[in-house]
């Protein structure tokens, strides 16, 4: 059985924000414009959270990339009245756009605030729409969306593996954020496979998870920084 997971090394991450743009490019995420962004409607499936610690001149900055944690016990799932979000056998917290009627309850119940709502339908003025990824649907107004662990890439790789009649190799699947990360701070893989890189990381002492106290069983593991 596979359980997709991700490891983020906060000591490698420099907050360069390459992953954020990569995510936009891969997942056809709309840009909402200044006015809407001012209302708090900007969409970044992955974001770099910045925290200050201490006072000048001994002040430190901490960066922490946060995307959907693909919780094992996701609070967002049961509250949806129409099964628009549910748990796949591979441990993904799937979002079915076609089913979503936009109660926005899931977003309310997400302790990580990583769900984003399409308040208006997206606008890709010509010829920007030529860039859109054909593997990912464009979401219209009234639909909730969030990080999918680049499920289209997962399925692509699984198809290839199936054609070649083999298992998916560790490291064969790379999410958009992890692939573009200059610091290689993001690693994606199968947490149920003890040989995989993510599993190795997960066993280290630096490993931790966000808001562990809520026992949401996130699939994203953070390697604590050393600064």
């Amino acid at each position: 059985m596979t359980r997709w997971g991700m490891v983020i090394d906060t000591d490698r991450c420099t907050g360069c924000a390459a992953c954020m743009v990569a995510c936009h490019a891969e997942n056809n995420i709309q840009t909402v414009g200044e006015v809407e962004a001012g209302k708090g409607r900007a969409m970044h499936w992955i974001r770099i959270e910045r925290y200050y610690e201490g006072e000048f001149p001994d002040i430190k900055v901490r960066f922490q990339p946060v995307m959907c944690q693909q919780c094992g016990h996701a609070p967002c799932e049961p509250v949806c009245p129409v099964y628009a979000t549910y748990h796949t056998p591979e441990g993904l917290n799937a979002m079915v756009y076609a089913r979503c009627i936009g109660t926005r309850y899931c977003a309310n119940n997400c302790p990580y605030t990583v769900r984003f709502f399409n308040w208006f339908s997206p606008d890709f003025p010509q010829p920007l729409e030529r860039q859109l990824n054909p593997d990912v649907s464009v979401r219209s107004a009234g639909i909730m969306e969030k990080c999918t662990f680049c499920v289209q890439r997962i399925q692509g790789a699984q198809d290839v593996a199936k054609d070649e009649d083999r298992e998916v190799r560790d490291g064969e699947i790379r999410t958009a954020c992890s692939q573009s990360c200059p610091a290689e701070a993001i690693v994606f893989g199968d947490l149920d496979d003890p040989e995989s890189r993510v599993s190795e990381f997960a066993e280290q002492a630096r490993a931790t998870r966000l808001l562990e106290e809520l026992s949401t069983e996130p699939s994203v593991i953070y390697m604590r920084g050393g600064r």
Partner: protein
Amino acid sequence: MSKRTHAAFVSPYDVREALERLEQDGFSTGDVEIRSSAPLDHDVFPERHAVHSRMPWMALTGAALGGLGLFSLVAWSSSVYPLPTGGMPIVAIPTTGVITFEGIAIGAILCTVATVLYECGLPGLWSAGTGPLDHHLADDHVLVSVTCDEGASTEWAAKALETARE
């Protein structure tokens, strides 16, 4: 071909007298219809006019049916298309319980109303509003109508009602 004699009374107690006289004159309760615009206190009437209702039992039946119905709907519909969410069981008893409760309630409510209508013989849209004295009902009078045979004891009945009237 039968005749009907109607009388309107102001006070229920006069009605009682009238009924007693009618009885003495051998009218069966089936021949006598009493109508009022507000519930009459039952001790006004002699035993044979007493009535009864199956209400509470019907309500309980409805409750049982409703609860069972919704529970099975939930249980079945979640298992024909099983989608795990938040690590909960496919048929989660606590959440199903809430729905079942509402099922019990709605079942009871509908069954109660159905029973009321059935026992009152409603809706009987066109049967009503035929009597000549109906408007007296609006004035809080009590109407008593007696059905009696061809030709026969009409005047008896009338007299009985008359005497009661004074």
